[in-house]
């Protein structure tokens, strides 16, 4: 195998793409095993977290505040499951370069696999939790149809792309500004209320709707909910999420490419 590497005060080692995928596969597999290793309930935790959060929110908002939305438990859960994927990925992948300093300083390997493995890992937990949603929906007389076969992969790709782009940017910047980890925590709780998770988009007053829809997550969470609850395929309404996905992938990969050679020296 011949590999020619030239660096003229610039480019860093270019490695084969095949090895990147294999490394990503092994890392994701390992993290999947690790996340709930030595816990009694194991994988069930990835179901329990959104379910328990959903139960608390349901009691508080439906029983106490008496929010006037039909099938409110489904409205909550169909948004909470994809949200938890998003939130866990952001929290765990933002420090993925900064917290692996020892490895980054000692081994040349495609660094991009570190945040990717974390995002994929949470994504797999999300996909594995979909059957639970199906059961919950079936209890209320809603059954998935063929639209899911197209809708789920489309929305998974959009959310995956959005996460990869955003987190390439955040994880790269986090190497130089560790404040970002704290900032994301604050920002995530803000985002939780600004995104139609606790409430469907239709209860948002018309005057406020543009503000909610600026948030690219809003259109994505709404698309998940429409698909899960009404078997409705994602349509043109998804454009803010798609636009943000493309933009973040472009910016994220460029920033990562520019900053990556300096990781080892900064850590």
């Amino acid at each position, binding site marked *: 195998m011949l590999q020619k590497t*030239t660096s003229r*005060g610039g480019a860093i080692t270019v490695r084969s793409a095949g090895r990147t995928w*294999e*490394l990503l596969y092994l890392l994701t597999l390992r993290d999947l095993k690790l996340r709930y290793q030595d816990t009694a309930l194991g994988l069930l935790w990835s179901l329990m977290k959104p379910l328990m959060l959903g139960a608390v929110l349901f009691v508080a908002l439906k029983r106490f505040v008496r929010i006037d939305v039909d099938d409110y438990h489904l409205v909550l859960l169909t948004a909470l499951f994809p949200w938890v994927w998003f939130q866990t990925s952001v929290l765990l992948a933002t420090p993925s370069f900064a917290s692996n300093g020892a*490895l980054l300083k000692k081994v040349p390997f495609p660094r991009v696999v570190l945040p990717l493995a974390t995002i994929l890992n949470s994504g797999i937990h999300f996909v594995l939790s979909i059957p639970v949603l199906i059961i919950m929906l079936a209890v209320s007389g809603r059954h998935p149809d063929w639209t899911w076969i197209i809708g789920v992969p489309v929305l998974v790709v959009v959310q995956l792309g959005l996460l990869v782009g955003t987190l390439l940017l955040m994880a790269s910047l986090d190497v130089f500004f*560790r404040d*970002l980890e704290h900032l994301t925590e604050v920002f995530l709780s803000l985002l939780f209320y600004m995104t139609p998770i606790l409430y469907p988009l239709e209860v948002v007053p018309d005057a406020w709707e543009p503000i909610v829809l600026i948030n690219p997550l809003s259109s994505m969470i709404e698309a998940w909910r429409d698909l899960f609850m009404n078997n409705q395929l994602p349509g043109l309404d998804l454009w803010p999420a798609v636009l943000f996905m493309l933009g973040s992938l472009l910016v994220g990969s460029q920033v990562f490419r520019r900053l990556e*050679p300096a990781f*080892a020296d900064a850590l």
Partner: protein
Amino acid sequence: MRSDQPAILAEELSKRYFLHGGGAQELKAALLSLPSLLGSNGRARHDFWALRDISFSLRPGECLGLAGPNGSGKSTLLRVLAGISRPTSGRLVLNGRASALLELGAGFEPRVSGRENALLNAVLLGLSLSEARAALPKIIEFSELGEFIDEPMRTYSSGMLVRLGFSVAVHVRPEILLVDEVLAVGDAEFQRKCFDHMKKLRADGVTIVMASHDLPSLQRYTDRVLLLEHGQVVLEARPAEVIHAYLLRVFGEETAANPIMGIPR
């Protein structure tokens, strides 16, 4: 690989670090240092040249040693050669698959088994997944860990950890090998195994760059040695010559007369 091409060609490699006011670790520090970065009369950034104008060329199959006191730039040079760290200026060409052993067992996860760690580590160090799977039985055999291989690595002693790390490293078959000190760990029997391995690699025509404080092993395994001091090459010569010069600098005339005996105990 064409044999008329050098395996490694380094031309005036330099590496500069900023000691203060450089990469800000906090947003606050970055914002505070912004005015001084923009203004011409801000606090001066303190330059530190870890490497300065390092040039050398290595034929395929040659073994180059890096000697010098702590902080002379040996590890920085290896990091630059491995592509982990970017040179501030200069040109670097590597011909062939390079593998860097800067630390044994880097990236080992204590909560999973030795077997799984060995597989991931092999891919991390440069093997493809199928190559790593094929090499795994040999890696396990070489490590002599027996049934412990399927236990979580947190149960391993540090010696066992090093053993597995080294076994993986042995089975990664690079064309260019960059080694930092790692062979200087472990018990006597383990060291012998390491040295046997180095001999075998040399016989196989692997191009090697090794940094070491162990002067006898530099003498035994390298064809040429760069003596580094303050990031600069002060001498490039045959091992015996460099070791003599090095000891002369450290201990003065009389001890340097006999290089091997002159090593402090």
